[in-house]
C-alpha cells in the first residue's frame, strides 16, 4: 500500500462505521462484556496475589493458649518459645486484648458482638519467625513442635492459608483463560459475522475496486481496521467497567470486614493487564475481520 492509500482506507472505514453504527456498537458492547469478565477474573487474581505477597512478608504463627493458665505459666511458656532459634519475638495477646482487636476489626459492624461475654476469645501468642526461617517447610516444622508444647491449644500459621489461597489464585488463573477463551471464541464469531455483514454490504464496492486494480491489501485493510477499532473500543469499555467495579467494591463490604482493609485498598489491575486487555480486544477484532475476509475473498477471487 502506498501512503496515499491511507486516506482512501480511512474514508472507507469511517463510512462503513457510520453506515452500520448500531451493529458496530452492539459488537463492541459484546466484546466489552467478554473482556470485562476476563478482566474481573484478572482483577481478583491480582488482588489475591497481592494479599498472598503481603502475608508472605509477615509470616507469623498464632498459638492459642489453653484456658486456665496462670500468668506465671504463660510467662514461662513465652520464654521457652522465645528461646527457639527460629523465633524472632513473641507477643502475648490477652483475652481482653483479643476482644478489643476483634471489635476494632469489625468496625461499624461491631454491634454484632453485643451480648457476648468479653472473655469468649482465647488468649494467644503471636510468634514472629526470623526472616531466614520463613520457608514454608521450616515454619511447618516449627508449628508442629509448638503443637506438642503443653499449654498451647491450637497452633495456626498463615502458610496454610497461603497454600489454600495459592490454590484459589491458581484456579482463578485457569478460570480466567478457560472462561475467557470460551468467551473470546464466541466474540470472535460475532466479530466475524459483523465484518461479514459489512463485507456483504460492500460487495459491489469490493468488486468494482477489484476490477479497477485495487490490491488485496487495499481492499482488506478497511475491514481489518474496522475490526481493530471495534475491538479496541470494546476493550476500552471493559477497562472502564472494571474501574467502576473497583470504585464500587472499595466502598462495599470487603473493606468493612477487613479482608483487604488490613492489607491496603483493593487494587486496580496494573498497566500491563490493561495493555493485555486492549491488545486482546484489538487482536480479537482484527482476527475476526481477517478470517471473515478470507472466507469472502476466496469466494469472490477476482
Amino acid at each position: 500500500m502506498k501512503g496515499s492509500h491511507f486516506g482512501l482506507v480511512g474514508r472507507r472505514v469511517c463510512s462503513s462505521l457510520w453506515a452500520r453504527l448500531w451493529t458496530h456498537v452492539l459488537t463492541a458492547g459484546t466484546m466489552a462484556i467478554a473482556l470485562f469478565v476476563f478482566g474481573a477474573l484478572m482483577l481478583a487474581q491480582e488482588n489475591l496475589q497481592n494479599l498472598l505477597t503481603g502475608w508472605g512478608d509477615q509470616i507469623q504463627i498464632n498459638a492459642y493458649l489453653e484456658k486456665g493458665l496462670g500468668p506465671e505459666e504463660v510467662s514461662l511458656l513465652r520464654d521457652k518459645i522465645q528461646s527457639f532459634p527460629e523465633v524472632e519475638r513473641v507477643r502475648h495477646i490477652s483475652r481482653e486484648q483479643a476482644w478489643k482487636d476483634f471489635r476494632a476489626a469489625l468496625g461499624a459492624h461491631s454491634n454484632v458482638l453485643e451480648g457476648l461475654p468479653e472473655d469468649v476469645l482465647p488468649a494467644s501468642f503471636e510468634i514472629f519467625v526470623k526472616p531466614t526461617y520463613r520457608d514454608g517447610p521450616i515454619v511447618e516444622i516449627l508449628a508442629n513442635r509448638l503443637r506438642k508444647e503443653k499449654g498451647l491449644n491450637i497452633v495456626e500459621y498463615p502458610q496454610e492459608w497461603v497454600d489454600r489461597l495459592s490454590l484459589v489464585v491458581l484456579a482463578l488463573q485457569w478460570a480466567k483463560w478457560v472462561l475467557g477463551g470460551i468467551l473470546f471464541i464466541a466474540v470472535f464469531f460475532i466479530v466475524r459475522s459483523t465484518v461479514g455483514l459489512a463485507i456483504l454490504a460492500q460487495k459491489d464496492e469490493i468488486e468494482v475496486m477489484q476490477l479497477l486494480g485495487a490490491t488485496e491489501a487495499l481492499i482488506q485493510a478497511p475491514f481489518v481496521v474496522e475490526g481493530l477499532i471495534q475491538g479496541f473500543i470494546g476493550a476500552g469499555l471493559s477497562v472502564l467497567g472494571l474501574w467502576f467495579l473497583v470504585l464500587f467494591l472499595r466502598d462495599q463490604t470487603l473493606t468493612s470486614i477487613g479482608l483487604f482493609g488490613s492489607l491496603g485498598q483493593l487494587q486496580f489491575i496494573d498497566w500491563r493487564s490493561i495493555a493485555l486487555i486492549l491488545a486482546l480486544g484489538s487482536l480479537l477484532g482484527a482476527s475476526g475481520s481477517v478470517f471473515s475476509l478470507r472466507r469472502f475473498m476466496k469466494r469472490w477471487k477476482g
Partner: protein
Amino acid sequence: MIQLFHVSKIYPPNIAALKDINLQIAKGELIFLAGPSGAGKTTLLKLLFREEDPSQGQLIIYGKDVSKLNSRGVARLRQQIGLVFQEFKFLPHMTALDNVALAALVTGVTRRESYTKAYQLLRDLGLREKYDARPPALSGGEQQRVAIARALMNDPMVVLADEPTGNLDANLADETMRLFRKIRERGTTIIVASHDLDLSQRYGTRVISLQEGDVVDDFSPLKEGRAG
C-alpha cells in the same frame, strides 16, 4: 501487443466457452469481437483482464504471461487496462466524479491529482455540468461517457469494452464509437465486444467473429483481406 496462443476455456462440467484461440493484436488497434450471445466474447475479455484463467494456452499482454501473475500482478495489470461494462458497474452512492476518481485512487494517486484528472476527463467528455450527479440520475449516454472516463483515468494500454453500446440508441452508439476512435489515436488498444454486427462493419475496423468459442472470421479492412 496482445498474443493468445492456443487459448481454451472450459467450464465445468465440460462446456467449452473458447476453443484453441490464436490471436495477435497490435498496439493501437481498434478491434471488434463480434458474435451472438454465448459465442465467447465476454469470456475472452474476462481472460484478458484475468477475471478468469484460461483452461489451456498462453495469454500475453505487453510481454507478460497473464496466467502467471500473482494477485499483486493482477492488480497491476488491471490498473493498465480500462474496462467498460455493459452494466457500467458504478457505485451508485458516489457521484460521477467520485466513481471516475476511484480508478486512480486505488492505484495510489493522490486525492487531489485523482479528482483533478477525473474532472478534466468528464469535462472533455461533455459532462462538465454532471460531475456531481450520482449515476442513477444520469442518462444512458451520460453513464456510458462516465464509464469511458473511468476507463481512461490511468492512461491504460488497453481498453476492453463489453457491449458498450448495448443499452444505447443508434446516435449514442455512434457517439461512443467516435470516442473510442479518438482514444485509439493516443496509441491505446481498444477491444470492443459486441453482438451488433452492423455496428462493427460500419466502422471499418478489424472484426474477429466468434461462434461457439471458435474464431470463425478475422477480417481487417485495412489489410484488405483476412488477417488470419
